[in-house]
């Protein structure tokens, strides 16, 4: 039996606008770029909505309505959802409608996963902050979709044994992560694994070859399997029968229409792929929670070092490989205690919005040497520009924090 577990990550950061040293102390709005450029968060959200979210939602909703065997799972970052609420409530409704189309019950056909609200790297710096953000995310998911997630995926599928332990203690049954070759060795990503150091936590591993065939290679004319058709892909899935139980296809939701444009035929592919897969009697679709109920863990995976789904390295280097990234992260988390103690809602929110992993991704210089595809994802003209604006913003945040604590002190001395 080959079960297909489809999971889409839906996320948009609040990109930091160009923020100069002269803005410190006078401009406390960090994310409100209103230019025609790539730092205008609202404009980007509108663009991606038109190209991806609305058309893809329509396709998936129809698939769910017409095909009772089709299943899918989503992880929405909180920072994405709050931007939808702020700018495009209709799109939020469209997601709500899609989720409704998957029904309710023990295993709804659309599963929603847990993650950190701010799509952050908080686990690496503060477990307390990590737990707070997971809780915030749960609350938002419950209020918007009426669901209580049981499966977890950390930002960019970052995982190690410690995360497994922590997440199990928080009550989750399953974690999604990357099927990294040097962890798996001879083993296949197409089975369920037990997480080392946990009692029952199950790991679902991304089959990166088949996932990336859609997410990255779909429109690549240099690829020997171009063009990718639904029957061809379904055949690859079917060939897993006998040597695997679940094929985890994990990718950015923006694959559909944004990374792979409409004219590549990606939407036609998505429409017919489920039917083609199900045409083989041994195939089926599953959600993550259903997968770990159906299939036993075949082995235990020990993952002491951090892995992720980013780049060929599949480690933390996309966010933490040069001095500016380390410096920005260190400076950000150094503020944690004072920010939280201030009790100031706006300060805490801005500080958390600055935790989104994308900010540090934009500062990465490792792939910049060959100027490859990653440039596509960087709205700044260089990693250095990203860093300079970010550090100026942190200075302003710190200034506000100081002013706030001065005011508090004054108030105390007045009242005391």
């Amino acid at each position: 039996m080959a079960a297909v577990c489809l999971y889409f990550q839906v996320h948009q950061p609040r990109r930091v606008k160009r923020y100069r040293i002269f803005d410190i102390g006078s401009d406390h709005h960090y994310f409100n770029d209103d230019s025609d450029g790539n730092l205008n968060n609202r404009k980007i959200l509108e663009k991606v909505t038109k190209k991806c979210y609305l058309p893809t939602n329509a396709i998936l909703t129809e698939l769910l309505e017409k095909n009772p065997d089709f299943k899918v799972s989503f992880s929405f970052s909180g920072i994405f959802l709050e931007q939808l609420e702020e700018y495009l409530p209709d799109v939020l409704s469209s997601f709500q409608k899609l989720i409704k189309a998957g029904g309710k019950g023990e295993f709804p056909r659309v599963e929603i996963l847990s993650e950190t609200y701010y799509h952050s790297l908080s686990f690496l710096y503060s477990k307390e902050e990590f737990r707070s953000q997971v809780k915030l995310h749960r609350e938002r998911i419950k209020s918007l979709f009426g669901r209580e997630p049981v499966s977890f995926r950390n930002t960019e599928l970052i995982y190690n044994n410690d995360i497994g332990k922590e997440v199990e203690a928080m009550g989750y049954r399953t974690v999604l992560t990357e099927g990294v070759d040097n962890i798996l060795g001879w083993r296949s990503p197409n089975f369920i694994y037990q997480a080392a150091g946990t009692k029952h936590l199950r790991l679902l591993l991304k089959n990166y070859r088949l996932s990336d065939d859609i997410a990255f290679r779909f429109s690549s004319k240099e690829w020997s399997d171009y063009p990718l058709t639904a029957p061809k892909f379904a055949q690859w899935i079917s060939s897993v029968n006998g040597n695997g139980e679940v094929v985890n296809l994990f990718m950015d939701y923006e694959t559909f229409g944004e990374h792979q444009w409409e004219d590549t035929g990606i939407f036609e592919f998505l429409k017919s792929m489920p039917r083609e897969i199900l045409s083989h009697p041994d195939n089926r679709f599953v959600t993550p929670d259903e997968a770990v109920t159906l299939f036993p863990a075949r082995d235990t995976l020990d993952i002491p070092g951090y892995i992720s789904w980013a780049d060929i390295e599949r480690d933390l280097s996309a966010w933490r490989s040069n001095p500016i990234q380390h410096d920005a992260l260190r400076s950000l988390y150094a503020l944690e205690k004072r920010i939280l103690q201030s009790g100031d809602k706006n300060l805490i929110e801005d500080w958390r919005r600055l935790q989104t992993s994308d900010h540090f991704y934009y500062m990465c210089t490792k792939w910049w040497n060959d100027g490859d595809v990653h440039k596509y994802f960087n709205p700044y003209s260089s990693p250095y520009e990203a860093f300079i604006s970010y550090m100026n913003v942190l200075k302003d945040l710190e200034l506000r924090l100081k002013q706030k604590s001065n005011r508090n002190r004054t108030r105390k001395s007045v009242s005391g």
Partner: protein
Amino acid sequence: MKVLMFGWELPPYNSGGLGTACLGLTKAMATQNVEVTFVVPYKVDVHLPHMKVIFAGMPVKIKGVKSLLYPYVTKEGYYSALSREKSPFYGCDLMAEVRRYSMLAAEIALSEDFDVIHAHDWLSFGAGIEAKKVSGKPLVVHVHATEFDRSCDHINQEIYNLEKQGMEAADKIIAVSQFTKSTIVNHYGISPDKIEVVWNGINADEFRHEDGENAVSVLKKGGYKIVLFVGRITMQKGPDYFLLAAKKVLQFNPKVYFVIVGSGDMEQQIMQQAAFLGISDKVVFPGFLRGEELNQVYRAADLFVLPSVSEPFGITPLESIVNGTPALVSYQSGVAEALKHALKVDFWDTDEMANKILAVLDNPSLIQTLQNNGHEEIKNFTWHSAASKCLNIYQRLFKRH
């Protein structure tokens, strides 16, 4: 392959980047079996082991005749040089002297054996054209700068005409950047197909990395930072924008010295501007420096700034990076298109220039990241690869002939 090359100057007697470029290129060619005959309007005794240097005057046997042409010469500059010489041999004005020099060059072409002619910038284009006429060999003109870079909006029409004639007569044009190629296409009406871009280089292994105390490094005592400008003090190089940015930086961080290395026609004006801005005590003018002395200043600096208004390439940022000091370069430079691991700014945006200078001074991690990556990136900029590209151009022309 034998090349007859016409230049302006060669180190150590150079006054600018053109001489550095000619030497780097010629040395690299010598290692690739290219025989270079380098002709300069010079009178000083220059010995370079890999090259046969001929003075423009000598082979035409006009004894004691030297050319009064010198690099970056202007009409006025020529007159004053001429008035000092009081000799009837020289041309009565700059253009006459350029024509005279071109004719002498043509005579060298008659006596030398070569396959291709390579002329650097307008001063030697006339010589290149004459050499092509008498020898029938293909001509490559190498554009390191145009009149539009040097003179901003006060174009000398005669120089412009000479440049245009050279470009038109050439079989191939080498531009030092895409930036310069666009100038040649847009202002000289040359077809882009005729122009190839060859970035300048630097021989990183020729630089030592010893820190010595010098007049500039002592400024760092007491926790001061150093922001460096190196270049001719002329409008083209944007020293005035550098000062405007300095003023803004000092408002946020008073513990910074701005060091302006070089000399030029705007020197007095820039000193006065510093006084007018009230920052004279933070702006230092050590004069023109070269060699190890200059390298020490590069190494003492925390950041190098190239604020050029129009810079065809810009070798100084490469020199700075080789010396371990990151660079902030204007987008109006060729080097901005070549370097990824440098900070960039529009020369006129002095707010942003100050913002970036302050970011570097405030964040050691930024310096470290730029250094680490710059150290790797600079390895791609070698004179060897520039010379290979030139050689490739020669070979294609040679075959066609």
